[in-house]
């Protein structure tokens, strides 16, 4: 049958658990990033001066900015690589599907992580082309974040699109934050019951915080 794989340190990544630990660690980094990104974005609500000053602040040191960017890019690459490898493993692990399959307790979010993941990956690429490089922005002014954001969200389709994407982000991280505590073995009877709740609350804060910007911009302009 199957040969025994002696679990050695060098084979850490070969196991599904090793890959999940990589996904969990990179997940922590990425959730941390989106949280900070969201709090930064809220300054759009305080007006042009605040947000544009913040944008300038982030670009004070290019080496520092690129260090942060490289950490994020590496995290995304490792996260996606492990996800695709595990998804292939899943397909191989059950070659014949069930004719009927019930669900007991699994949330929709937990069963659709790969799909919310694909969606977010596409969104992230479009989002960078939209607001960072301005490639697909119709009226992009380098450095004037307030202008770029408000002009973009004047379009109800773009504003709605961003809100929908934040729904996917909520789905992905509401399960992801809980799941990473499992992958990293952060389970304890005193705190585990709270882990799912904390994950959902954190996901709501992040998604609503992000969605507040397009909603607010659209509401102000619509008036």
């Amino acid at each position, binding site marked *: *049958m199957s040969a025994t794989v002696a679990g*050695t340190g060098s084979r850490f990544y070969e196991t*599904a658990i090793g890959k999940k630990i990589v996904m969990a660690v990179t997940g922590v980094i990425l959730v941390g990033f989106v949280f900070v990104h969201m709090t930064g974005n809220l300054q759009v609500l305080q007006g042009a001066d605040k947000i544009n000053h913040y944008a300038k602040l982030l670009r004070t040191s290019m080496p520092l900015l690129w260090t942060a960017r490289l950490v994020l890019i590496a995290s995304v690459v490792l996260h996606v690589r492990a996800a695709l490898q595990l998804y292939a493993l899943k397909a191989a692990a059950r070659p014949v599907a069930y004719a009927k399959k019930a669900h*007991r307790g699994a949330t929709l979010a937990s069963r659709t992580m790969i799909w919310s993941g694909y969606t977010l990956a596409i969104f992230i690429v479009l989002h960078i082309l939209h607001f960072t490089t301005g490639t697909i922005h119709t009226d992009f002014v380098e450095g004037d974040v307030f202008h770029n954001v408000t002009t973009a969200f004047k379009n109800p389709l773009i504003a709605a699109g961003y809100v929908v994407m934040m729904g996917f982000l909520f789905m992905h991280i509401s399960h992801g934050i809980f799941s990473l*505590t499992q992958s*990293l073995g952060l389970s304890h009877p005193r705190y585990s019951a709270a882990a799912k709740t904390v994950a959902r609350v954190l996901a709501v804060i992040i998604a609503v915080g992000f969605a507040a910007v397009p909603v607010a911009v659209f509401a102000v302009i619509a008036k």
Partner: protein
Amino acid sequence: MTRTFSLTLHVWRQKSAKQAGQFAKYIAANVSEHMSFLEMLDVVNQDLLAKGEDPIAFDHDCREGICGSCGFMVNGDAHGGHRGTTICQLHMRHFKDGEELWLEPWRSAAFPIVKDLAVDRGAFDRIIASGGFVSVPTGSAVDGNAIPVPKTEADLAMDAAACIGCGACVAMCPNSAAQLFTAAKVGHLGLLPQGQPERDRRVLAMVGQMTAEGFGHCTSTGECEAVCPKEIPIAFIARMNRDYLEASVKERPQANRGGSG
């Protein structure tokens, strides 16, 4: 008065792992509400035998929910989906007259189908053989009570030791992962003092074997704990992951020399 009724069964029939299978339709007439699910199948099989047909193959042994032999899917639920219940302990009173049931074997590449609803769970045996034990020198066994074990740890170890290895966790998991089974075995021994000397080696070997057997990955959906007849929680999976991480970090290169005295 005993309620009797009839059911329509769609049963997966497959002669061997090599041959293709398909669903066959049977009517189970005169089902008593007091029958267990397996007794209901026994009656169906008697009818098949009387007609000269091949009876439906399924695994079973103790029929009291403690051996781990039985198990298949009923309408997409492992063991029929009742909390803390094996299929042999599932009684027909839970079903209604005229209900249609789809019976399928555990579906996992690591569990090849032997025949019909019976699968080969040898993969679990090989995971146990790789590290699910404690090494005890014979002839010098110490008194059982000589090593103190805190009550809370003993209880937790017992919760994990309750695993009967039926395979419902793998069958129900959307990824065919064997994490709950392996975690129960790793956790059971890892919680006790007798399991400490081999704790790191054990988790590395058992996780390694689980990987080699072709099981999937854990996405923390909780489907396994929901159908586990022994209600083993996924907190044990977190415990195994942590043990695996720690053991991977601490592991030293193995010495190739010495030891023979």
